[in-house]
């Protein structure tokens, strides 16, 4: 574990979710589940953690008659993600 890295993002599934959300406006829960291959339960738990940290927002609604959960990265989340990537690059370029 690297001291400079955000521990919330230094987790395989949360990092994958943030990477997915960083490149799009918003994404459905089903899309995130399909892309990460995670179970619904595990994904929900990690999404809750990211939401609690203010990195993403979750909106529940309907698409037609089907329930739909949409996730969106927040400016704080974008900033944290950028910081995480920069810290990784620094670490790798320092040759540690």
């Amino acid at each position, binding site marked *: *574990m690297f001291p400079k890295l955000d521990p919330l993002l230094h*987790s*395989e599934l949360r990092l994958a979710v943030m990477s*997915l959300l960083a490149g799009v406006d918003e994404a459905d829960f089903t*899309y995130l589940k399909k*892309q990460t291959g995670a179970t619904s339960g*595990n994904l929900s738990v990690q999404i809750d953690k990211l939401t609690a940290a203010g990195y993403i927002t979750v909106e529940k609604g309907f698409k*037609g008659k089907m329930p739909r959960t949409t996730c969106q990265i927040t400016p704080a989340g974008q900033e944290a993600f950028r910081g995480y*990537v920069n810290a990784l690059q620094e670490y790798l370029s320092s040759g540690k």
Partner: protein
Amino acid sequence: MEQNNEMSAQQSLQIITETFNKSRKGILRNSAKYFLLWGALLTAISLVIYLLWNLTGKPQWNFLWFAMPAIGYPLAALMGKYDVAVPQNEVSKMLTGVWRVFGVFAITLSVVAICLVPMNVSLIIVIILGLAECMSGVLLKNWPIIICGFLLGVCGAVVAMLVNSEAQLLIFTLGGVLLLVTGAIMKLQNK
């Protein structure tokens, strides 16, 4: 994907890169089906009008062009409804924007030409079709699409000035085939 808090820096970067690429490819693959839809429609409708016009000698068959948005937009909406909720990224949003602008220009100019000021609509539409195709190639960073769009716009405009109205329809058939090829390239590149 399971929880793993003991990743190395390389593993973290690998997850980010792989996730980005997988997502980008999925989004572009999803956009490809709209190129295939509009390409198939343009090819089919231009050929049908060409054949009917040649068989009957009546240019009124050109009103069938309005079947294209009438069929295309509901079909595109239906396809979107049954999507596995694929999100939009910057490239797919810009592609949608380019083709929406093309659609608005093409429909408005056709209506203006019919109702207000007669003009060579084929010439204008083939130029903006080539331009939209060319811009799609620029957004997708794909040289074959850029070159095909450029050739369609420039050569199509020259041909549209030289041939009669019936033959101009075949330029649009070629444009439709080009859209189909663009869709196929997008699908293949983002497998």
